[in-house]
């Protein structure tokens, strides 16, 4: 079946512009995650959704970052007034997380959006 889909795959934007990144998770996966990966680095957790709600937003780097999920499916990550330090690959993942404490569901990742802020 279809995996996690992210769009666009690449985005080049000017400093100060807003960008919107989209994630379409695997059908039926209730949990959705956003991570950021800088060159040669590990993954930085940003936010996750259980259904449409985001229990913990503390991973978002600043108030310029926001995310929403509607209908328990597609999610968008919005970065306002982009800065050069926002340049990174933004990865989305989903999992079949049946309950909040179900921590044994592996994550399924999309191929990411490579964001370059000039």
């Amino acid at each position: 079946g279809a995996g996690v889909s992210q769009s666009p795959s690449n985005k080049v934007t000017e400093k100060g512009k807003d960008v919107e990144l989209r994630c379409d998770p695997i059908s039926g996966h209730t949990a959705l995650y956003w991570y950021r990966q800088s060159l040669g680095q590990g993954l930085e957790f940003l936010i996750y959704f259980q259904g449409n709600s985001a229990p913990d937003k503390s991973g978002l780097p600043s108030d310029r970052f926001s995310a929403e999920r509607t209908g328990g499916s597609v999610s968008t990550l919005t970065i306002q007034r982009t800065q050069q330090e926002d340049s990174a690959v933004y990865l989305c993942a989903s999992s079949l997380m049946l309950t909040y404490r179900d921590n044994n569901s592996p994550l399924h990742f999309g191929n990411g959006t490579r964001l370059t802020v000039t």
Partner: protein
Amino acid sequence: SQQGEEDPQALSIQEGENATMNCSYKTSINNLQWYRQNSGRGLVHLILIRSNEREKHSGRLRVTLDTSKKSSSLLITASRAADTASYFCASHSGGGADGLTFGKGTHLIIQP
């Protein structure tokens, strides 16, 4: 502080040899997971080992977990060129996604 620190950061071996990567973590965990990432792609889940397990196998992969040393190792036997990728461990220390912490990864190169 960063959980899930992989070691070495980079590893280059000949095709057919075995590759061993290590991971250390700092707090108690519920499980530890290993993922692979090919260049320009997302991460792919390889194997999950629970805190009450000591060893797990999947095909050419063997994972061990030593909770007393807070460490795990991933062994890839009879390596192939297609195994060239970055490998990440992710330790899960609590409920929810905020309890899953990824390391910086080991970049493995298999030379034909």
